[in-house]
């Protein structure tokens, strides 16, 4: 018994990820935490997307289920779980059954290497970024399977579109990633890293986010990635695979109920996954703004306040809206619910002020905040852009992004070499 406790507690003092420390228990705990957090994030994303999109479109969005529709995602989840699970008679049963599982597995597996903080990752793989790109590209298999197994025309076209799209954008994406990885090798030893944690530490060591490195090269690489990642996740304006006005719902036309919700879950977690890649590679991962310039104890203290303040701000919004609720008996429960939600948020905020917690959670907060910025961009794109046509999409991928990516890669390598060379001259 004592050994078990020691095995569990030994990790708490370690400064490595559970995977690297070889601690199975904490690895499991982290996996569970990531899974839970991801599910909550998807639910929150669902609500936020509806709300933000609604306000962009001069309407209110969900308002009925819970105060300001806060319980709407839960109601939807229950609805989806209770729905009849339909499988077309002519479908290929096993493949039809496997497809959503593969998509979800691929979408969730990538989070094994996502670094929420220097120690907040399930494990730190030597090939982290390669692993992420590889596993997230597996989801295309699930999509193709889904489209083919449905044995119907719309899903098949959707699947073909989706696979062609993903494969072609992966190339541009890979080139952009490589140019960022090149930047990690600009240190004394001259060796770069593929590890997600290593990449962020390289940014810390070099004192700037890679998006600003070799301006504008880093920015262009980031831009290429930002476009390719929208295409990778099949979101507007690249949502041709599920363009509802053309293909009804694309590859998941024949899916319903729980299986459909698996696709939904996978789509949103894939969005979060690619955003985490972008944040890790270009936006400094878990690093808070200006970690080197505004360093020192006082600045640390100030930035430690941010997570708590953010949650208190959300709580304040809740309370403000509680006061604004109509004073009608029918609204009493809603008012109470909103106030209760505000209290929960406020409590979370207060806990985050507690120094040990804030010290440990700060990384996670900054990482999540950056990812949330990307999520907002996703919604924004959806509200603004019309959909690309398939040939235009391909043209964009192969004729614009790919040459740009190659050019950026070559230029980055060239500039890096030039820098080294100049350094040598000056030192001599």
């Amino acid at each position, binding site marked *: 018994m004592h050994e078990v406790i020691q095995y569990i507690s030994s990790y708490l003092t370690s400064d490595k990820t559970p995977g690297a420390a070889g601690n199975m228990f904490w690895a499991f705990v982290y996996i569970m935490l990531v899974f839970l957090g991801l599910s909550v994030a998807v639910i929150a994303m669902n609500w936020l997307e509806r709300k933000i*999109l609604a306000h*962009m*479109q*001069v*309407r209110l969005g969900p308002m009925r289920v819970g105060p300001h529709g806060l319980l709407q995602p839960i109601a939807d989840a229950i609805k989806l779980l209770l729905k009849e699970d339909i499988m077309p008679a002519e479908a290929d049963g096993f493949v039809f059954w496997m497809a959503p599982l593969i998509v979800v597995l691929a979408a969730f597996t990538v989070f094994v290497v996502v670094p929420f903080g220097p120690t907040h990752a399930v494990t730190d793989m030597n090939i982290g970024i390669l692993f992420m790109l590889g596993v997230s590209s597996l989801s295309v298999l699930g999509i193709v399977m889904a489209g083919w197994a449905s044995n119907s*025309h*719309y899903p098949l*076209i959707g699947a073909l*579109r989706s696979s062609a799209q993903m494969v072609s954008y992966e190339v541009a994406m890979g080139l952009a990633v490589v140019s960022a990885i090149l930047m990690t090798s600009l240190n004394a030893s001259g060796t770069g890293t593929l590890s997600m944690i290593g990449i962020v530490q390289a940014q810390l060591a070099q004192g700037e986010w890679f998006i600003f490195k070799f301006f504008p090269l880093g920015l262009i690489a980031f831009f290429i990635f930002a476009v390719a990642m929208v295409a990778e996740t099949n979101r*507007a*304006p690249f*949502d*041709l695979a599920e*363009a*509802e*006005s*053309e*293909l*009804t719902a694309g590859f998941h036309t024949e899916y319903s109920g729980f299986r459909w919700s698996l696709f939904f879950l996978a789509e949103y977690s894939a969005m979060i996954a690619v955003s985490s890649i972008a944040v890790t590679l270009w936006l400094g991962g878990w690093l808070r703004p200006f970690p080197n310039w505004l360093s020192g104890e006082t600045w640390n203290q100030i930035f430690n306040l941010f997570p708590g303040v953010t949650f208190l701000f959300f709580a304040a919004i809740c309370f403000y809206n509680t006061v604004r609720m109509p004073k009608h008996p029918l609204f009493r429960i809603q008012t109470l619910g909103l106030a209760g939600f505000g209290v929960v948020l406020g409590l979370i905020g207060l806990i985050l002020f507690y120094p040990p917690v804030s010290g440990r959670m700060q990384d996670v907060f900054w990482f999540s905040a950056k990812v949330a910025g990307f999520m907002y961009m996703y919604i924004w794109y*959806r*509200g*603004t*852009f*019309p*959909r*690309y*046509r*398939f*040939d*235009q999409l391909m043209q964009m991928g192969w004729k614009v992004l790919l040459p740009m990516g190659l050019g950026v890669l070559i230029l980055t390598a060239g500039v890096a070499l030039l820098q080294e060379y100049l350094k040598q001259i000056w030192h001599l």
Partner: protein
Amino acid sequence: MTDPNTTLSHLDPVAHEKPFLDANELVINMGPQHPATHGVLRVILHLDGEKVLGLECVIGYLHRGVEKIGEHRTYTMFNPYVDRMDYVAAVSNGLGYCETVERLLNVEAPPRAQHVRVILTELNRIASHQLWLGTHALDIGAITPLFYTFRDREEILKIYEKYCGARLTTHAFRIGGLQYETYTGFEKEVKNFLTFFRPKIDEYEELLTTNRIWVERTKNVGIISAADCIAFGVSGPVLRASGVKWDVRKAQPYANYKNFDFDIPIGENGDTYDRYLVRMAEMRQSVRIIEQAVDALPEGPIMAKVPKVMKPPAGEVYHSIEAPKGELGYFIVSDGSTQPYRVRVRPPSFVNLQALDVMCRGQLVADVIAVIGTLDIVLGEVDR
């Protein structure tokens, strides 16, 4: 026929080129339940991969026999039925019908009624174009304009509701004039709407006109030449976007359109983008017309002298008006009794829909959606 316009071999609906890889082309059945067919249109697409080799439209899912009903109703009783054809432009339908019967009866509506008719039909044109814009943009993937246009269309519907109590199938006009006098503050509300609406057109244009994806999706998509348009009898904005300056309001003025000053916007290429621009410009022209009509709204009676029991002299009349979607014509044969002997409607949507095959051939599936949207069809009118 030796007219080259009507013997164009490329309009042959049967012949289309062979697919590339697979011997059997992919046949997709789009509709009648499909999010982008604007009702119950069924399109059978013959595809080679994503390329459209040819398509056939199957219509009739919404057939209610409006023309036949007309033969069994008195002239007055049939009036509300026509609203149900193009239900997003009900006022225009009513205007066309009333004017046709008025010509049969040889009466003319008084000037005040004419003015109010022009105001309401032009408002209707704006409403119809707004609905078109919203759904067309939605089909192409821009989901936001839909809500903007519906927000503004609401203001027009409010005016209708105040005027005649109905929002959609208004039954606003009567044979010989109007039934209702305008309500107090009608002019002011219409003017308020115009000042409200003018910046809104700019807003729509801001969202779409220079949007790169929008331009890429609509330029050079669904091109139809002026000759093809004439061969098919296509009318309305689709015809004008191909560069033919034909507008019934100018060509054969009805109501009192000749008193108003407005332009006919035309396009050059006959592609989807031009049709979009033409319709946007038409909304601005409609605003101009309404403004003039409201300013010059005369006093006077609103109903001409028509008999309680209408028995037009035996004969036949074809009269057409410029509905939002194109030339809307009514052909009514009277045998001197209280009921028409034959009613035939020339619906613009139905005629325009024929051009779909030619416009889509060789394009991609996504373009079919864009073209269906740009034709601005209403299935209630196609099927009647």
